[in-house]
Structure formats: structure tokens, C-alpha cells
């Protein structure tokens, strides 16, 4: 019973999970997803955010074309804002999709 409930939990409750698991003692059904701890753009100063650079931006959208959240990509708040802006610019000139899959066959 508890198993199925855990499985259906949304990502939003991630933050609480850590505290909960200590209390319950058993977390064998929880999948561990390793997440990057550092912002890529803060650690690598040469990596710039540009709305024309599809290769970098495509790492920050998921397969449905949505912008991936910070908790998945590890970017800091400042760079996440820039990324989001760049993705929206790129969508307007049809470099990235608004929705759905796309193939980077031009590169």
C-alpha cells in the first residue's frame, strides 16, 4: 500500500522525502536519482548561454520540449533565468520546439 503511494508521488515532494525516509526507516522502493550539485555555468566560465547555441540549450529541455527544472539540472537561480530566456528566444525562431521531440540533425 505504502509502496504504490510512494511511487506515485510527484517530484515536488522531493525536499520532504529526505526527512521522511529517516523517520520511516525503509526506503528500498525509492529510486535514487543522482543530481548534479554544481551549476555548469558557474563552474565553467567559458560556457556561455546563447539563444543560438542549440546544442547547449537542448540539454535543458526534456523530450516533450519543456524547460527542465533546476532540481534536475543543478543550475543556479541566476543562470536558470538566463537559460529560460534563451530557450524562449530560440523557440521563437524555430531553433527549438515549443512542444514535442526534435532531432539535432543540422549539426
Amino acid at each position, binding site marked *: 500500500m505504502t509502496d504504490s503511494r510512494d511511487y506515485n508521488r510527484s517530484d515536488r515532494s522531493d525536499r520532504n522525502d529526505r526527512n521522511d525516509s529517516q523517520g520511516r526507516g525503509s526506503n528500498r522502493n525509492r529510486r535514487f536519482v543522482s543530481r548534479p550539485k554544481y551549476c555548469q555555468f558557474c563552474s565553467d566560465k567559458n560556457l556561455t548561454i546563447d*539563444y*543560438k547555441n542549440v546544442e547547449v540549450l537542448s540539454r535543458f529541455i526534456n523530450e516533450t520540449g519543456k524547460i527542465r527544472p533546476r532540481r534536475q539540472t543543478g543550475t543556479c537561480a541566476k543562470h536558470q533565468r538566463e537559460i529560460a530566456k534563451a530557450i524562449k*528566444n530560440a*523557440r*521563437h*525562431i*524555430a*531553433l*527549438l*520546439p*515549443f512542444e*514535442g521531440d*526534435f*532531432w539535432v*540533425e*543540422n549539426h
Partner: protein
Amino acid sequence: MHKYELIYILQADLDEATLDAAVETIDTLIKNNQGEITKTDRWGKRKLAYPIQKTNEGYYVLVNFEYNPEEVAALKRTMGFNEQILRYSVVRVD
């Protein structure tokens, strides 16, 4: 004068001469309004991420230029009237 970056997508099914003419028109349009072009970069034919006006391909051109901020709105309007241009975007670079 500020630095701007313009990307526009031309219809991909135009022939070479028409493409050249279209790019030339935009370049002269910028120059005629006291703009200074630093670079015109033709990306060439690319697949669009989604269809625009029922076409799946477009001819991308990137222009770096300096322009008077008050004239940008007029430039955008003129580009909107051009039917060979599927989509354009003017972005300020700092």
C-alpha cells in the same frame, strides 16, 4: 547607437538569385537608416523545429549591426511586410 543581432528565416524554396537579392535588401535597409553592419552570416538551409507557414525548412541569416534604438520598431515593421521572411527576431547584445 546600440548593438543588435537580427536573425531572419527566408523561404527555403527560393532560388539562389532571389535569396541573394532578399539578403541584399535587408542589408541596404539597415545601411540606409544610418545602421552599421559588422557581420552578415548565412547559416543556410536548416530544418525548422516546427512548421512555419506549412514549410519545414528555412534559410537562416544572422546579421550583427549597430542601430539607432528609435529606428528598431520601424525596421521590424518593414520586415513584417516582407513575405519572403517567415520569421525574424531582433535582440539587443550587450
